[in-house]
């Protein structure tokens, strides 16, 4: 299986007490408390670990740090969510989860680079969402009061 964490992405195969980490063989064993694994011994050291999977993300606590791994879909698997890339269009993406407090432009408006198009409120702060360039607003994907996730398209500028 392919796992990614930060910039690293490697193939991990576990077989007969040996992990293959990107082709490197690491013998390991597990320590249990009841059914749960609480420590992993690898390379002569034992690490207390906790790990929980949710969807295609795996959260791991190990060596007093937390890591978030992503399970990369095998070839042919369809992704349920495709993140639009900021580079591929005039799309404007939400920088964080929050609530759209105000929309200050309408479809058809000519907009200039840096112009505030909407105000996103997350927790106790307001964040201005600005136009990345000069152009025309051709699509608005949100309205005042909407809750938005991080990375979703809010508007499109041509």
């Amino acid at each position: 299986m392919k796992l990614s964490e930060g910039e690293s992405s490697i193939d991990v195969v576990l077989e007969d007490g040996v992990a293959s980490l990107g082709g490197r063989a690491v013998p390991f064993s597990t320590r249990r408390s009841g059914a749960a694994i609480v420590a992993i011994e690898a390379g002569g050291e034992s690490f207390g670990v906790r790990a929980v999977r949710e969807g295609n993300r795996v959260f791991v606590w190990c060596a007093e740090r937390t890591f978030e791994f992503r399970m990369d879909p095998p070839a042919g698997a369809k992704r349920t969510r495709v993140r639009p890339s900021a580079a591929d269009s005039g799309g404007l993406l939400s920088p964080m989860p929050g609530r759209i407090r105000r929309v200050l432009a309408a479809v058809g408006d000519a907009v200039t680079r840096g112009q505030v198009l909407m105000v996103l409120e997350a927790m106790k702060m307001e964040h201005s969402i600005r136009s990345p360039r000069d152009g025309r607003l051709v699509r608005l994907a949100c309205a005042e009061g909407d809750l938005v996730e991080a990375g979703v398209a809010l508007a499109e500028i041509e």
Partner: protein
Amino acid sequence: MDALPRRLLIANRGEIAVRIARTAREMGIEPVGVFESSDAGGFHVGHMARSIDLGPGGPAETYLSIPKLLKAAESSEATAIHPGYGFLSENAEFARAVAGAGLLWIGPPADAIQKMGDKLQARRRMREAGVPVVPGSDAAAAAIDPSDEELLRRGAEIGFPLLVKASGGGGGKGMARVDRAEDLPAALEETHRVGLSAFADGRVYLEKFFESPRHVEFQVFGDRYGSVVHLFERECSVQRRHQKVLEETPSVALDPRLRESMGRAAIEAARAVGYVGAGTVEFLLDERKNFYFLEMNTRLQVEHPITEETLGLDLVRAQIEIALGAPLPPPWRGGKLLPQGHSIELRLYAEDPEDFLPRSGRILLWEEPAGPGVRVDAGAGAGTTVGVDYDPLLAKLVVSAPDRRSAIERARRALSEWIVLGVETNAPLLAAVLASPEFRSGRYSTDLIGRLPSRARPQPPDAAWIAAALAAGDGGSPAAPAVSAPARSRDPWDERSGWRLGA
């Protein structure tokens, strides 16, 4: 002192609702919680024996709705209301409405809330009471004209950089730093607009900006009979985006003489508005150890536990007793109260530790630190959903030790035991603060976090990759048989599952 109420409505959520409920139960008062419908799974609801559903509509229609809160008190037969912090805690209208409904208000008089809530009025009162205030303007015009000659002239006198502040603002909201005279009109306009929309008060004023100040606050308490005391200071200079991240007491910046004069000024500030109950007077302390009144928070502070720990007190209990008409306890008035040791509070936020942007999601695993000198006031736990409608504070870790050095080591130890999976937290930032030589020396100011060296992303050790692969549920390893895995679909991308390892 009047008889104790039988039931207390806690008009709040999160860790502070839980904190208040604990004291209520110890006093034999039954706590009653409230919640917004979509917050029915909130941590505080699970903690209370009884809570009232305020209906849907987000915080504005529930935790901030005076009529709904009064109705909840009526239907639950609660005869007292504690507002906690945030929400309606500094709303004079709420304080009046609670008293008007014949209920006991666990907070200062509405009149004192109002006087301190108006920052411009408060500045003027403090000056009159002989409390030093930050140099600035006192223009009290009801509406602001951004081309106001007087404000522009005053700005030039104060000098740049300076701060434009909304009179109704606070908590880092409604203020703008201005570096050049030509940017002042735009900042006046912007702050005026924010003030109007966020606080329904468009008045703005100017304040001198200090490059590396410290924020030191004093806990004060007053009773109905005119006695006011201070319960020493809290050092609150570790901040990001003007919001506190770590607090400690005592402050290394104060010597006994400075402590005495700041404490006296704090008492004068409270007296000037006829203060009763718990309040906090915030000061700015410059490099030359001049101090200036910033504002007074007319409620319980988030960071109140460090005062409780060093003095061995329960401030919520004191709030309730004073609201019932008890005088301040004699030892408080006799100057016999002396702090013991050192206490530090760390605020665990659901946020990116690098850019401080809030994070949301569901907490999948939560293990709290414990052991000697450790107290955790939590408002979240395993299964808690962290949304975007509420404050990202998850919990507070409060450590106490005989001296500052051992308190810092204890804080590092406790932080390293804290396991939170599922939602990113600022724990790495807190660890970096505790490790920084500047913080450890005690010679730090509000720009500490901005000056921390950049942190390298740690690489996962081999064991972490192996644990991830085990939890990912890759079959074929005899070392990793299914661990209490709920029914799982073939394709892990199809649905969210709660498969866990080491739970």
